[in-house]
């Protein structure tokens, strides 16, 4: 197996994901546009993955550690509050009689 991916691999992934995002979002009911915004915002907090790597590498410089720490903190706040608040909003949507 080859480590790392070629640029064209990454471009394929990006193109497919963009088309997919387009199809998925178009179908979201306008009823849910507010929770959608807060969900995508929360999902984007997955950049925490990059922040973790930067912070905890063996050869991380103090600067990298500081920046990484802040990034992990910011991303975690987003992920946690974003997901919880989306759920809180969605919990309120009820059909008649539910």
């Amino acid at each position, binding site marked *: *197996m080859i480590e790392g991916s070629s640029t064209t691999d*990454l471009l394929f*992934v*990006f193109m497919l*994901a963009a088309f*997919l995002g*387009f199809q*998925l*979002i*178009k179908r*979201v*009911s306008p*009823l*849910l*546009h*507010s*929770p*959608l*915004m*807060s*969900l*995508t*915002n*929360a*999902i*984007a*907090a*997955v*950049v*925490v*993955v*990059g*922040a*973790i790597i*930067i*912070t*905890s*590498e063996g050869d991380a*410089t103090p*600067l*990298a550690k500081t*920046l*990484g*720490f*802040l*990034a992990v*903190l*910011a991303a975690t*706040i987003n992920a*946690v*509050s974003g*997901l*919880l*608040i989306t*759920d809180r*909003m969605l919990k*309120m*949507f009820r*059909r008649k*009689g539910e």
Partner: protein
Amino acid sequence: MDTELIVQAAYLAASGLFILALMWMSSPKTARRGVRCAEVGTVIAIAGTLLRHDVVGYDLVLIAMLLGAAIGVPMAYLMPMTAIPQRTAISHAFGALAVGLIGIAEYYKLASGLAPGSFPLWALMLEMLLGFLTCTASLIAFAKLQEIMPTRPIMFAGQRLVNLLVFGAALAFAGLMIFLPNSSQYLPWFVAVALLFGVLLVIPIGGADMPTVIALLNSYAGLACSAMGFALNNKLLIVVGALDGTSGFILAVIMCKAMNRSFSNVLFGGFGQVAAAASGGADDRPVRSMSAEEAAPVLELASSVVIIPGYGMAVAQAQHRVAELYEHLEESGVEVKFAIHPVAGRMPGHMNVLLAEADVPYDKLVELEDINPEMPQTDVALIIGANDTINPAARDDPNSVIAGMPIIEADKAKTVMVIKRSMSAGFAGIDNPIYYLDNTQMLFGDAKKMTEQLVKELQEL
């Protein structure tokens, strides 16, 4: 090698879960399942990352995550629903800051090993540019929404030129750092210019246009995340960034369409001026007004009522009273529906969230295209704090600033009742001919107080 496989499998699974999450957001029945998916996806992505063999020191990361959770949880539960637009803005600022900071750290680590002009360098610079400009832009948007800053557009002479110069400077620094090896001395400059550009982008835009700006910033944040994925060779980040980017973009397009504004109008800033220029001109034609006492029996005797909420309901936090009114009317045998305009309020889906919070069943909320054909058969159209979204000028007057914007045709109902505090204009700053129609009755007052009174009168009938 084996753990690498597990890590990649975790990323693959997390991507799949995020896709399912968005797929299930298509309907309120499955949306909560979608959030579950997103939660599991995030956990799997983090767990996979912690397994990587280049990840060795856990302490700092764990402290940051615990701290983050300790801040995030109360934030989520204490946030009032009316503050959602602000919260989204500040959260974009945090997210974009994280992306930018990671970019800096990566640059110091990787740049010396990369060939000048190579693809990862391009990706890194794009990541930092988008990250930092989104960060300050979101902060300004937050400040305007929270009214910490003046909400009117801030303009000065030569603004376009300044913007252009700043943007040019950012590109120049980026170019230097991409093509000249060991030019890390320019990095602080580059960051400063990117931050400044974010500020300049948003200050000339009026506060009321912030929702569109926020959707667009969501899209930029997504692109920044994808750029980071390209730089770090991480497909999960690319997928999430692309999903996020398209989502923000599509929401911005939807908002523009519903306001009949061109999209470039948003992209190149400078709007909201229209609203600032045309000042709300109340004219002297007579209007009919009614008290709650007079209005209650009319509502009670109607066989169908369509309630049309707008920004005023949100400002007055009147949603719970409106829900009570709805229940009372339903109990007296009146058929009640809510007509929801796509840009009623100040963010997409604003009315839906507020009414859902007040326990109005969502199958009572009808979209514009579906309610308009029913308007002529409707006895009473009860407008609560909406204005532009029911302005017949958009349909009838080709010279109106909102000409062509789709509206809810409240004027076609047999009786129109309007709850608002005065004759002043709405967001677009223009007069509304509906107030002067023969079949229109104004119920002057704060939306919350007035609905409260209506409910009381109905109880006494």
